[in-house]
């Protein structure tokens, strides 16, 4: 098993923490993991992305030029990363603010309206765990039990009161993701 994933969007969407939750979940499942962020000025209001690799073998390069899965959360990232999904791979995107939808026919495309759903629930903070839940529905690379442990381990103790809401958001993300093609 090897999953090479890019999560890309705006700074503030929780892109890096989503990657961290997934990476910690992978550790709980005994996988080798790497979490390689973009860092620096990109994070302040601009684009932010993180490459997460989960594997049952030693991971050679933490840098990838093609991805099994891309989670795309803004238009700039769509331009940049849609072409980098492997043929037969998966693209997941939030339709909010997307003006040019994915065009590739050789990959599976899923949409999740997490921005809209979080607005409806009045819970903007649950955005990234909802997306994560959608991803795990499509690519169940880690057992849900380990995801919940990974979630707890990647949050500071002061945020543990948010755990039940985030757990629900992960489940709910799996319910609202839909296949486009």
């Amino acid at each position, binding site marked *: 098993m090897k999953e090479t994933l890019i999560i890309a969007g705006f700074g503030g969407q929780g892109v890096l923490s989503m990657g961290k939750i997934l990476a*910690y979940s992978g550790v709980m499942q005994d996988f080798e993991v*790497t*979490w*390689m*962020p973009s*860092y*620096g*000025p990109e994070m302040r209001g601009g684009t932010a992305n993180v490459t997460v690799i989960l594997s049952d073998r030693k991971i050679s*390069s933490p840098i990838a030029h093609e991805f099994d899965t891309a989670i795309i959360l803004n238009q700039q990232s769509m331009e940049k990363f849609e072409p980098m999904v492997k043929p037969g791979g998966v693209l997941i995107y939030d339709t909010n603010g997307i003006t040019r939808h994915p065009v590739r026919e050789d990959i599976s495309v899923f949409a999740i309206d997490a921005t809209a759903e979080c607005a409806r629930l009045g819970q903007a903070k649950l955005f990234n765990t909802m997306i994560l839940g959608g991803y795990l529905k499509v690519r169940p690379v880690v057992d849900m039990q380990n995801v919940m442990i990974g979630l707890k381990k990647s949050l500071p103790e002061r945020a543990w009161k948010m755990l039940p809401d985030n757990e629900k958001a992960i489940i709910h993300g799996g319910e609202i993701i839909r296949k486009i093609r």
Partner: protein
Amino acid sequence: MAEKEVKLMKGNEVIAHAAIRYGCDGYFGYPITPQSEVMETLMELKPWETTGMVVLQAESEISSINMVYGGAATGKRVMTSSSSPGISLMAEGISYLAGAELPCLIINCQRGGPGLGTIQPSQGDYFQAVKGGGHGDYKLIVFAPNSVQEMHDHVAEAFDLAFKYRNPAMILADGAIGQMMEKVVLAPQRPRKTDEELKAECDAWAAMGKPAGRERNVVTSLELQSEKMEIINQRLQAKYKTLEENEVRFEAVECDDADYVIVAFGSSARICSATVEMARAEGLKVGLLRPITLYPFPTQQIAELAARGVKGFLSAELNAGQMVEDVRLAVGGKAPVEHYGRQGGMLFNPDEVLAALKDKLIKK
């Protein structure tokens, strides 16, 4: 489910944990991207409340390195960390530490230069780390970690060698290794050295109070008599020769039957290990020689590969071509040696390295 003692951590964070667990006595630093998490993590862990380790934010890099000089002069295990422009500021102090033969640990989490450059990863400080950087004929012991686990392990290894040879040691990392998170197993906590232990180990040279029975220890790099200064230089050179003979560390991946060998260190070696996998999948016999110590450099190991009949070497570095000069010296004209690199904070992909290998060496 029993919880394992496996942590997920950034390379920079693990430096802090490893230093505390090694029994480090003091850290003196000044923040700079992409390594600020080293001091941030130390401040968060508050080791002064547990092991008694001092953590101090100095007013500048120049102060940090001179605090390291002061701590090291008393036989304590002290360290600093910075990134490229900050290391340049420390260069004078590093030369003094080497001249006074003081053991210490310096972390350089490199970013792109020259000047203020960029905050993205680079390996543009290879020359500075292995050829001097400061003035005078001196060498640092230089480790190049390629994973978060090695960031952890090299703290203890570098400190041990620094004390064994009474010489400053450097961990030459970069923004990619510093910012990346991976699994890591932390070493058990070791106690800091007691005063008695320090006395037993460093009484011959360190400034820790003059007992009645011996002469004063003087820690200095100054010697105005040229005859004496030359003898000091010769002693340093003899020490460096011993280091070169005994402390070279490297990893050879698929080199035994390789027609072509990529030489790469640190984060670029990680990327190139995927290049080797891709090349082998295409039936190309490609290996990777990874210097783990950049000084001392695995000259002999590379020379042996060249003597064995390797058809070409590619030095893949995140710079304009620095280590390639040492690879050429080692190969000694027996095979072509080419360089492939990216600069300014750009990383290369495994497939780009493979394309460069084909273009520069295999097609010829």
